[in-house]
């Protein structure tokens, strides 16, 4: 039917953030002809938004740090729901991945003796985050981008063609994966600029598409975060795990509307910033949970002493884990003690001299001055929770990043398991590097292993993919009134924000599922105006399908998990339940055999329970038994050395 541009590659990486670029570098270095396909221009991926740093136990600032300490912190942060093998690999390999960036030309801030400086962050026992001021994500993306260019320059010298072995397809969206006899055969997409279709014939695909935050009304995520990789994996037959766990960062900007949701870094609180309600009260003292009472100060005097003398005082409660702070802010606003624009006040102005604030938090100072007309050295900021990160994602093999579908790999935010029910700040950038590389390796080994036995995409499937992509132009004909994609997106964001947000209840989630079902039907009736050349309405119409599907996974899993843990808080089940610790929820898509188009063959999301594999005894032994008993059932701890005597 339509004319389609065709390309053949060994490995196709979808997404050009930290994970995608690191995967591409690895695949190319292992001799694979590699493509990177990304929705934005090369170098604009959401990774640039990361501020704090990359967590890696290099021990440059405190030599007591090591992979075991990092591993423990990560498991605690995730409330022991993490895939322990991923957490182990991550903690062990993160330092090498950071040092490798220096060989690509990265310039991190330095310690006095010339090594990479490391900073403190929530949940990390020692100063651990390699950083460049508060723009670490930009450094990461630019370094990897420049390493891709370096590899291309090598190819140019050898073959006279920059793109002989590694090509970036910028502003290009993948709408479908092609699967033949259960194996990956390629990917189908379109150029955003021209609307022309492309077919990638490739035996392996690495998903590195990031998260799903754009399904929420208030989010720190950019427009790209529409859950594309999550949805592509589901439709290809892979499973998603942990989708009920969504991290709400406690401090996003709430005003002005144009920047609602944009992140205010945790470092503001780390450097002395405090949260106050409309009555001027430092309310976090009212929200210290029982399990944290030993570690957090219950009065302002002690809390304020901690900044200078952390060894003899308890931490200020503003530095509780992200989920606790987000819930507290939410409760204050609901109780009518919020700020004028529906947040609370974050005050650094009365805590530090103006010059000191500008020195420590340059980008926050700049962000508020330029975007909100607020001088944070003189007045408090207004902040509130913002959807920040999804812990859930494609179920993968920890070592190879392989999904359940042969040839399909996933790394970074789109992969699930590593962070359990809650991610620590700083563990995302390291995750991208460690598992981006492993996914590149995994894909390369897979391609080598199948030799000449490569599946080829079936033409009728390619035609179906093209038809499905063109449906919003009305070639199929709607079976209801035509819908506007922008309106549907706003409705979806409202549903997820109101009914599957920070605090969840079964009746609200059931209501959300009804609304999502209705939205799913209406999305099929979306009609767009104009033609295929750079048409944002059409682009959104296609992304919307992914957003609705992934939102359904979040809502269904959240309804199923009848406990509160990390990024999943149930008003009707407020306690953490050890019976749930060893159970994961997996989402799969039911396929029916009949039906004309792909959409007709998608039946709905099914949620299955999966047992969490028991942690290896040597890793379990890294924890004190007393700590584990807070999370584990007694019979699960029989292997612990103190139990065995």
């Amino acid at each position: 039917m339509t004319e389609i541009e065709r390309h053949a590659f060994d490995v196709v990486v979808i997404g050009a953030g930290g994970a995608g670029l690191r995967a591409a570098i690895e695949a190319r270095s292992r001799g694979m002809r590699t493509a990177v396909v990304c929705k934005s221009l090369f170098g604009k991926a959401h990774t640039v938004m990361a501020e704090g740093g990359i967590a890696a136990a290099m021990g440059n600032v405190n030599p007591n740090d090591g992979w075991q300490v990092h591993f423990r912190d990560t498991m605690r942060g995730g409330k022991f729901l993490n895939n322990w093998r991923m957490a182990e690999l991550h903690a062990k390999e993160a330092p090498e991945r950071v040092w490798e960036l220096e060989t690509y030309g990265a310039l991190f801030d330095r310690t006095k003796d010339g090594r990479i400086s490391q900073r403190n962050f929530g949940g990390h026992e020692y100063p651990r985050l390699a950083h460049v001021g508060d723009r670490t994500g930009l450094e990461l993306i630019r370094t990897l981008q420049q390493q891709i260019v370096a590899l291309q320059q090598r190819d140019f010298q050898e073959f006279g063609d920059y793109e002989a072995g590694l090509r970036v397809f910028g502003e290009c969206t993948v709408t479908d994966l092609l699967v033949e006899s259960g194996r990956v055969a390629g990917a189908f997409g379109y150029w955003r600029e021209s609307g022309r279709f492309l077919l990638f014939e490739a035996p392996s695909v690495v998903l590195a598409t990031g998260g799903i935050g754009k399904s929420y009304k208030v989010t720190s995520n950019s427009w790209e975060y529409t859950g594309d990789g999550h949805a592509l994996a589901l439709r290809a037959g892979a499973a998603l795990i942990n989708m009920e766990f969504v991290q709400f960062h406690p401090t996003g900007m709430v005003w002005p509307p144009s920047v609602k949701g944009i992140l205010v870094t945790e470092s503001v609180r780390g450097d002395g910033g405090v949260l106050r309600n409309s009555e001027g009260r430092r309310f976090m003292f009212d929200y210290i949970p029982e399990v944290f009472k030993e570690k957090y100060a219950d009065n302002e005097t002690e809390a304020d002493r901690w900044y200078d003398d952390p060894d003899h005082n308890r931490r200020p409660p503003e530095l509780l884990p992200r989920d606790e702070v987000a819930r507290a802010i939410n409760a204050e606003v609901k109780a009518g003690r919020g700020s004028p624009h529906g947040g609370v006040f974050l005050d650094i102005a009365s805590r530090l001299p103006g010059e000191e604030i500008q020195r420590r938090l340059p980008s926050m100072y700049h962000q508020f001055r330029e975007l909100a007309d607020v001088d944070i050295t003189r007045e408090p900021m207004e902040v509130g929770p913002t959807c920040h990160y999804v812990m859930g994602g494609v179920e993968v093999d920890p070592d190879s990043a392989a999904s359940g579908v042969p040839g399909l790999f996933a790394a970074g935010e789109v992969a699930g398991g590593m962070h359990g029910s809650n991610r620590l700040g700083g563990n995302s950038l390291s995750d991208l590097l460690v598992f981006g590389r492993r996914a590149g390796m995994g894909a390369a080994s897979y391609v080598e292993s199948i030799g000449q036995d490569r599946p080829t995409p079936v033409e009728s499937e390619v035609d179906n993919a093209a038809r499905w992509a063109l449906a919003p132009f009305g070639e199929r004909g709607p079976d209801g009134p035509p819908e506007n994609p922008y309106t549907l997106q706003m409705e979806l964001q409202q549903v997820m924000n109101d009914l599957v947000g920070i605090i969840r209840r079964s009746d609200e989630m059931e209501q959300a599922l009804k609304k999502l079902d209705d939205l799913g039907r209406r999305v099929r009736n979306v009609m767009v105006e104009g033609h295929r050349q750079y048409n944002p309405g059409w682009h959104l119409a296609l992304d919307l399908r992914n957003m609705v599907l992934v939102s359904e996974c979040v809502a269904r899993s959240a309804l199923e998990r009848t406990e509160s843990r990390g990024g999943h808080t149930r008003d009707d089940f407020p306690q953490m339940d050890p019976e749930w610790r060893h159970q994961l929820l997996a989402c799969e898509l039911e396929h029916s055999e009949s039906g004309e188009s792909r959409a007709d063959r998608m039946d709905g999301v099914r949620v299955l329970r999966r047992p969490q594999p028991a942690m290896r005894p040597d890793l379990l032994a890294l924890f004190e038994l007393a700590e584990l008993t807070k999370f584990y059932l007694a019979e699960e701890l029989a292997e612990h050395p103190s139990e065995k005597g």
Partner: protein
Amino acid sequence: MGYQAHFRVWRGDADSGALRDFRVEVNEGEVVLDVIHRLQATQCPDLAVRWNCKAGKCGSCSAEINGRPRLMCMTRMSTFAEDETVTVTPMRTFPLVRDLVTDVSYNYAKAREIPSFQPPADLAPGEYRMQQVDVQRSQEFRKCIECFLCQNTCHVVRDHEDNEQAFAGPRYLMRVAELEMHPLDTADRHQDAQTQHGLGFCNITKCCTEVCPEHIKITDNALIPLKERVADRRYDPLARLFRRRKE
């Protein structure tokens, strides 16, 4: 609180197009990009605009607002009078794709022409030692968000398309300076800056510095020092003698 603003937005493609007038709602605290998005959602769903982070960090939404090269996400509506017409046009230097979107591939082509970082052969990963004071100079240039506003503004290419071949533009000359000042880079770069990347075209009018949303002192801190290094090497009599001997 809200008011109806008069917007004039370029609509069209490489073949034809025109400025179109719109009345559009503006609310307190909004930026130009918010208003463009409102136009998309309510009046012209196919209005093409490139954007991403909406916080001045990714450098995607570059355009010319009332003739000034700016990021749309960092231009607050409160900087205009309510009765002022706000004109939004695509970056002029680059070929038009559609509406506010231009073809910026020139920049990516130039990026490939700058030889990459060359690490020292004798240092293993993890052995790099550098002082903060030494990395700081290059770190300033690495704040660049690649919005390409400096490339768009520089008159060397803005007014003379023919120079595109020989001139890398401020962003990529700054990249040469960044690598040149990298404490551990082993390549010799300043002659190339002159002969390969067109440093000589720059006559330090500082237009690039003026439009940089990251406030990088491109001219003062990158281009002028690079010119000085080139000049030192070229006209230093001892170095000349040494060069001649080598030859």
